[in-house]
Every structure is written in C-alpha cells, then in structure tokens.
C-alpha cells in the first residue's frame, strides 16, 4: 500500500521482526552451507572453533578431488557443464514452443481453441508421478541400438521430457504477454497482406522481449534444478545427482560437497539479485510445489 500519509508506523517494526524471526531457519540454513564451503570443517553445529577459513574446498571442487585422502576424483567441470546443457536445452525448447503456441492462442480464432487452453490447464494440474512411469517406458522403447549414441540420446530425451513439464504453464504465461500488446501493431501488417508467420516474426517477437526473457529464465531454472528427471533418464551426472550420490559416500569430504552445493546455487543467486521483479511476477504463474 503506497498511501504514506495515513499509514500507521507504530507496528511496522513488529511485523518485520516477526517475519524475520520466522525466516531465521531459512537464512541460517543457507548461510551455514555457504560459509561451510569456505571452512575446513562443516560449521552446521554453530561452534566457532570449527570455522577455519580456507579456499581449499573450492580449489578441490574445480580440480575434482572428492576426498582429502585417496585419489577419488570427479570431473566437476564436466558435471557442471552437463547441468548447463540440460538447463539451456530446456530453456530453449520451452521458449520456442511457448512463443509459437502463445501467439496463436492469443491472436487467432480457430475451432478447439478453448478446449486446447482448458486442456493445457488440466495438464499442468496433472500428477507428474502418473506420467513418469509411462515416460520411462517410452524412453526404453525408443532406446538406440548403437551404444555410442546412448549418452547423447539420454541428453536429448531428458531435455525434451523435462521441457514438456514446463510447457503448459509457459504457453499460458506467453499468451498473457501477447495479450498485453495492442493489436493495432500487427493490424497494419496483416492489412498489407503479410502472413501471420511474418507478423509474428517481424512485429510481435521484438515487442515481446521481456516475456521471452521471463519464460527463458524460468525454463533455465527448471532444467538447472531438476533432480528427478536427470537421475531417471540421464546417463551422465549433473550437480543434483552428484550431491545426491555423495552425501552417504564414506569418502566424501563434506565441506567440499558444501562448495559444490554453493556452486550449484550460484545461478539462482545471480537471478535472485538481478531479476527480482521478473521472478516475483513470473512465479505467480504457478509452478507446483
């Protein structure tokens, strides 16, 4: 509420204090994880003695040394790269398909349009868990015979399958962005005889850049953070499956896992700091959880 004149400031500090108190576990948890990545031991028990600053963990993460002793190594750059491939792939496919479909749902009249939009909403509400068994059977049935293609195929499949989960919501989101553009902009083009495809490409896409950015960003975060699909379909490791596998491993040096976790958190934090308005708006679209 922006009515400064009449707002009572008496209880404002109280509200802020209560909310901050409720947020404490959240702040504490993430802060301790990030701090532990710069320490020789984990400092989750809040004792200051265990905080001995070092950047060794980060050096070891980039060199892939998983344990202090022994030669257990993992190419973490490769793993980060895999995560990035999945995230960019999901982002690209989601953006492309939703800018295409969002335009026609916003601007064109055709039979089945209402049904299609309702169906998209229903799909978004549909239990993901009911799908994954069938999605995996499809994966098995289309598995390539040639072993050299298997790894590439698994990337290809995980990107498509994960993107499919984001499509219903992104199409709705994109349609919303197209709805905000006054349609006089494309009117002249259509009168002059340009095709819808040309109008979409030449007139609409440049106007809709913020929407494209939002959808691409959410697609990226969805692919970047995914755990279930990558561990089910992808043969190579991502940061999610790396952390999953190393929590219980005997040889793991935990501050190093904390460093990998913090590395994994970086894009989130970057978006957090740079795209705040976008995030607050876009998440109202209703990602499940």
């Amino acid at each position, binding site marked *: 509420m922006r009515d400064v004149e009449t707002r009572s400031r008496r209880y404002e500090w109280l509200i802020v204090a209560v909310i901050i108190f409720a947020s404490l576990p*959240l702040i504490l*948890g993430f802060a301790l994880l990030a701090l532990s990545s710069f320490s020789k031991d984990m400092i989750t028990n809040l004792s200051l003695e265990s905080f001995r600053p070092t950047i060794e963990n980060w050096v070891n993460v980039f060199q892939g040394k998983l344990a202090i002793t022994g030669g257990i190594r993992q190419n973490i750059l490769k793993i980060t790269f895999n995560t990035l491939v999945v995230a960019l792939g999901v982002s690209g496919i989601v953006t492309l398909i939703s800018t295409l479909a969002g335009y026609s749902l916003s601007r064109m009249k055709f039979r089945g349009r209402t049904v299609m939009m309702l169906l998209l909403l229903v799909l978004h509400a549909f239990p993901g868990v009911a799908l994954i068994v069938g999605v995996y*059977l499809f994966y098995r049935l289309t598995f390539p015979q040639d072993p050299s293609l298997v790894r590439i195929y698994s990337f290809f499949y995980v990107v498509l399958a994960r993107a499919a989960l984001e499509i219903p919501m992104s199409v709705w989101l994109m349609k919303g962005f197209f709805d905000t553009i006054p349609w006089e902009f494309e009117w002249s083009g259509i009168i002059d005889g340009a095709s819808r495809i040309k109008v979409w490409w030449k007139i609409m896409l440049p106007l809709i850049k913020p929407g494209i950015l939002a959808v691409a960003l959410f697609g990226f975060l969805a692919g970047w953070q995914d755990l279930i699909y990558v561990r089910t379909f992808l043969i190579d490791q991502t940061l999610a499956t790396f952390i999953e596998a190393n929590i219980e491993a005997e040889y793991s040096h935990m501050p190093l896992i904390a460093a990998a976790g913090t590395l*994994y958190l970086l894009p989130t934090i970057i978006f957090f700091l740079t795209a705040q308005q976008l995030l607050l708006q876009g998440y109202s679209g209703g990602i499940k959880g």
Partner: protein
Amino acid sequence: MKGEKLRSLSFFLSPMIAMVGIFYLIPLVFTVYISFTKMRNWNTEKYLSEIVGLYNYQRLFHMFQHDPMIRAILLTTVVFVGITLIINVFGGLLLALGTFFINESSASSIRLLWLLPRMSPIAVYSLVWYYFFHGSDIGTLNSILLKLGVVSEPIPWGQITPWGVWSIIIFVNGLVGVSFGMIVFTSALNQIPKELVIAARVDGASAWQISRKILIPMLKWHFLYVLTWQFLSLLTTYPHLFLLVEWDLVNRDYGTTLALYVFNTAFGRGEQDQGLAAAAAVLLSIIGIMGGYVTLKVLQFERMIHEPRGDVE
C-alpha cells in the same frame, strides 16, 4: 485464405501438440497399460506383453488393508497433505498481509527471501535441511537446543515416528509452498482499490481491523484458487521428499507419501515393481483428475478465456 490459415496454425501449434502427445498422452496410455501387466525391473521383453488384468489393483487394495508399511504411507499422505495445505494457504496469506502493511523495500526483500526455497535446486535445498535437522550434535537445531540447555542430548528428529518425521517433511515442503500463496495473495491485494483502505485508516481502523473487515473478504476467489491448486500439487509432487528419505534423514515409512511411493516402487533401490507402481499412479491420477475437475468448476476457468483479438476473417 483457408489453406493459408491452416498452414500458419499448424506452424504455430504443431510443436506444442507434438510435445503434449509424446510426453503426456502416450505416457498416460503406457502407465495405464503397465498397471495391467506384471512389469518388474523394467524387463520389457519378458513382461510387456503379459497382461494380468486387475492383479496389481487387487494387490494394492490387499496391501491397503493388511500391510503396515502401506498403511503408514497412506496415513502420512493424509496428514502431510492436510497440514501442509493449511500452512501453505494461511502462511501465504499472513505473509501477503504482513508485507502489505510495511514499507515497500522491506516488503519486496522479504518476498524475495521466501522465494528462495522455490528457486534453489532441490538437491541444495535438501542438503540445507539435512544438516539443519540432523539427528546428531552436528545438526543445527540440535546444537541450538543443546547450547540453550533445552535438551541434554541430541534428538534424532527424523526417527521419531510419526510426529517427528511429519514435522520435518511438513516444514520443508511448507516453506516451498508458502511462496505460491504469498504471490497470488499479494497481487490480489494490490488490485484492491486503495481508497477503501485509506478511508478505513482515516476513520482510525487498525491493521487487524482492515485485514479482517476489508481485505480478507475480498480474497475469497484467490483463497479457493490457492487451496485447490496447492491440494493437487501436494498430493502428487514428491521431489522435495525424495532426498530426505533417501539420505535416511527421516524414517522411510512415515516420510513417504503415496506419490513418492509410486516413484520409489518404480525406480528405487532393490526390487522394482512397475506394475504395482503404475496401479498406484492410476489411482492418484483419478484423484487428481477429480480434483482438477472440481477446481475448474469452482473457479470457472472458462471465464478466464477471452475471445482472441485481432483475427481477420
């Protein structure tokens, strides 16, 4: 003109239709089909063509009646969905109202902070809570309580069945869900005409009176929306529970909901039983479809779909 329109429509829509067909419709048929086979360990060659009728459903109902593990899972699902739903809806409402009454810059930082659980990678988020609730003295919560002298020994939170386990899974998922309600309610509050609130303030109404008499009654539609939507989500999503159970932070039976049970039965460690998992998934889908139908009816989503503008006939 007709052919031209058809061509452009198929250009715009066919990629989406292909994706939906391949990753929603075909898998759905496959899942239903698998629920009628004896499929296990993904041995498609042996079991894909072996139809066993309702065998898996019978097994499932038999387990519902007699298997203590499944009974724990069903009970967990009911408690988890019920309580987390309440926390999500009312927590979101409280946060939205709370941030409504404070200055804009603190409000937006607080909103952003509460988006963190939703934005962070699930593996990192789980890692944070793994340490927070760890049952030994390395656990953050335990060490705080030990330092304060509240307890004398570390408490294995996640192994106290059922309420210790339930508290953890409800807490962890509640934090993720609260932001959804918060954002929906915040955007709804911003659409309420300011004059109403200003007039009440001039008359000397307190924040509490303004909330109760003016704001909350206007949020009815959004309240129902968040309630039904979050119900569907909580019933069928499981990634935030998956690692907590896998890392043994929480007890396996009382930390597993039906959705997670489906996933672990189909893809988990040890023997995998996809036939049974698919049958359970079909049951969950039926509940989900009914819930979705109610949502659409209650909220009259048809009203959200306007006629398209700018089509030249």
